[in-house]
Structures are given as structure tokens and as C-alpha cells.
């Protein structure tokens, strides 16, 4: 099971003003605000923490299908490029990759390596990004499981959680998709193939 989130650094600069009064308080705990004020580059820390929260939220809602907006309640602790996020009793591990172009975070229930792959676009258009990232993901799944791509489809639940279907049947793999600005990211996690025991059952 995996949740990921990508932030386009240039786009984040344009879209949001993290120095706006009230902004940090609404999203970040006191501890997180300390990380930000102490960081060499506070801007990067803001979006690193944000992407961690988003990735953790995506993982959480796969375990407990639901939909809500409470980023502050996802509490981060970080060191170098790893970190943990807690939400109530839920806890997960998050790896973050900070590049010159984007920040990519990925949440897992166990400590594990990052599996997300990034997609670089030359245009910034929500619909194109979403469509092409999904296409690339389906190509990958089609190759990996030798299923004709024409039979594959991604569908989102009422809570916005994506699943892969072969014709009408849901494929037993977990995916996560994210896109922002000029970049997309997708992750495919396959419990059977990687022999990772699934410790939680989906309610």
C-alpha cells in the first residue's frame, strides 16, 4: 500500500504564498513550524512537510476509506530525507525526494524504498497531466502483468481513491497518483509480488 504526492517547486512559488498571515498556523503544528523556521530553505521545508502530509493522507484513506480536509492533524517528524507522519492512532513512514524541479513524498506502513516514478511534462495543464500520468501508469501495469492495455482502466472511488480494473474486475494492486504543475508521479505496489504482508484489512 502506498500514497504519494508531488509538488512542482516553481508552481508552488506561484500558486501559494506560505508567508501569508495565518497560512502556516492553519496547516502546521508548532513542531513543524519550528522545522520551517530553522530550515536553510524554509520554502522547501514548507512544501516537503506539505507533501508528506498529503502522501500520508492518501495512504490513510486507502486503509480507512473516507474524505476530509485536516492537514494539521497529520503530524510530521523528520530527519534528513525520511520522516514519520501520525494521524490519531495511524502512523506511517514517509520518504521524500527533493530535486531542483519538484518535491516527491511517498508514504508506506513499513520502512521501505521509494517506488514512485516521476513524469516530466512540458506543459502545465491539469487535464493533460492527469490523463498522461494515468496512461503511463497503465502502460507500466500492462507490461508488468501482461494484460492488454485496452482492458485496463483506472477508476476512483467516491472518496477519490484510485483503483485499477481489468474489464470489470478490480486488480489486486495498490496505486497512487499525484500531479502538480509540470510534474506527475505514480507508484504501483503489489503485495503479492513483493511478498509484503498486508497487515491491515480494509474496512
Amino acid at each position, binding site marked *: 500500500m502506498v500514497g504519494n504526492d508531488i509538488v512542482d517547486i516553481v508552481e*508552488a512559488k506561484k*500558486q*501559494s504564498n506560505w508567508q*501569508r498571515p*495565518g*497560512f502556516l498556523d*492553519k*496547516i502546521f503544528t508548532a513542531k513543524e513550524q519550528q522545522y520551517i523556521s530553522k530550515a536553510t530553505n524554509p520554502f522547501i521545508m514548507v512544501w516537503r512537510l*506539505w507533501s508528506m502530509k*498529503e502522501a500520508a493522507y492518501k495512504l490513510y484513506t486507502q486503509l480507512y476509506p473516507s*474524505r*476530509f*480536509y*485536516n*492537514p*494539521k*492533524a497529520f503530524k510530521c517528524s523528520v530527519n534528513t530525507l525520511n520522516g514519520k507522519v501520525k494521524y490519531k492512532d495511524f502512523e506511517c513512514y514517509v520518504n521524500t525526494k527533493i530535486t531542483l524541479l519538484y518535491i516527491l513524498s511517498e508514504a508506506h506502513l513499513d520502512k521501505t524504498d521509494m517506488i514512485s516514478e516521476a513524469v516530466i511534462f512540458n506543459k502545465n495543464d*491539469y487535464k493533460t497531466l492527469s490523463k498522461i500520468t494515468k496512461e503511463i501508469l497503465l502502460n507500466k501495469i500492462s507490461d508488468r502483468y501482461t494484460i492488454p492495455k485496452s482492458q485496463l482502466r483506472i477508476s476512483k472511488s467516491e472518496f*477519490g481513491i484510485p483503483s485499477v480494473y481489468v474489464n470489470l474486475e478490480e486488480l489486486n494492486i495498490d496505486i497512487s497518483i499525484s500531479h*502538480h504543475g509540470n510534474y506527475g508521479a505514480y507508484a504501483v505496489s503489489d503485495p503479492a509480488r513483493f511478498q509484503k504482508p498486508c497487515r491491515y484489512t480494509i474496512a
Partner: protein
Amino acid sequence: MTNEELIVKLKAIVAPYIQDEAAFKTLNEDTDFVKDLKVNSANLVDIILDIEDEFDIRLENEDMEQMLDVKSAMAIVTSKLNA
């Protein structure tokens, strides 16, 4: 304030953050900020801050938690204004 007036105000507030023009044009009570308007989730905070400024109210985390569509935003604003 009537519901119609409230929607007009909310529409003006979300306008800078939307990424789907078509859904924005037909904005109504059932419009979802993220699913329909494709508002970036970080910008939801800006919308919340803008609503606080516009109506001179304070939204707590619990209020934010369900503020994912126009309907819930209207309900929260109305309850705060009447409080």
C-alpha cells in the same frame, strides 16, 4: 444574507484558485472544490483564509475538515455568522 448572495461571494473567493473553468461556470451547491473545480489542496487553505477575512469569522480545524464542497462551506459560514 441569502443563499444566493452567499454563493456569489464564495464564487468570487474561489475564482483565483480553480483549474476547471467549465465546472466553475456552473458552480452550485453541489460543486466539489477538489473533484470538480480541481482546486489544488494547498490552495484550500487560501480559500479558508479568504473566507475568514471576507466574513470576519474564524474557522477551526473541525470546521475545515468537512469543507470540501460549496454546500458545506455555506453551512459552516452560515452557522458562524449566526453564532
